[in-house]
């Protein structure tokens, strides 16, 4: 079974802090994704990566950055956390190529106070 592991289920941080969310997958997937999920807005893509050290902006990249130093690990960074970044963050991964489903981690519920 595919395993996508997010480092924390719940996280509480303060405004202005630098926040790191970690995601690790064990299936040798090329693609990795970070989404945020908010009520009434669905899943919105923040960043994705299709290879080590490669990254591309999704729909809402402002206020975020990412790092992919190893194939299995994809980190989301909130450079200076703000209250409007309180959300559920979901990591996903998939193989490269057509018609490959994405597999999701359990999510990190992040609260910025």
């Amino acid at each position, binding site marked *: 079974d595919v395993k*996508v592991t997010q480092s924390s289920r719940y996280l509480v941080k303060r405004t202005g802090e630098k926040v790191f969310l970690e995601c690790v997958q064990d299936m040798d997937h090329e*693609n990795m*994704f970070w*989404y945020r999920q908010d009520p*009434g*807005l*669905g*899943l*919105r*893509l923040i960043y*994705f990566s*299709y290879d080590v050290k490669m990254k*591309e902006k*999704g729909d809402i990249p402002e206020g975020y950055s990412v790092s992919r130093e190893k194939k299995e690990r994809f980190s989301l960074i909130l450079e200076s956390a703000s209250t409007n970044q309180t959300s559920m963050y*979901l990591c996903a991964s*998939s193989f*490269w*190529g*057509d*018609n*490959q*489903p*994405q*597999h*999701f*981690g*359990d*999510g990190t519920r992040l609260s910025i106070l």
Partner: protein
Amino acid sequence: EDKVVQSPLSLVVHEGDTVTLNCSYEVTNFRSLLWYKQEKKAPTFLFMLTSSGIEKKSGRLSSILDKKELFSILNITATQTGDSAIYLCAVGEYGGSQGNLIFGKGTKLSVKP
């Protein structure tokens, strides 16, 4: 602008009922349509549809795609309380970046005993 629209947004039924969830899309270079089930944690992959008129089936769940009318339905027969979840529809595109999905906002299904 590409979009995926799910209806209804929420639905309450009783055990044993049959439900139909709808997903319509306007996507420039359609490649595939995926259904996910999200309970309290990670969305789990249900089906991927690429061809019109071919039903995918798994137990009490089935889904079909109409590429002419640009929609898909997910049917659940003899619903159980364990079917309570958010059902997400997503569409993948050709071209652009490999692996990206455009998500609908989801249908929240509640099955009452």
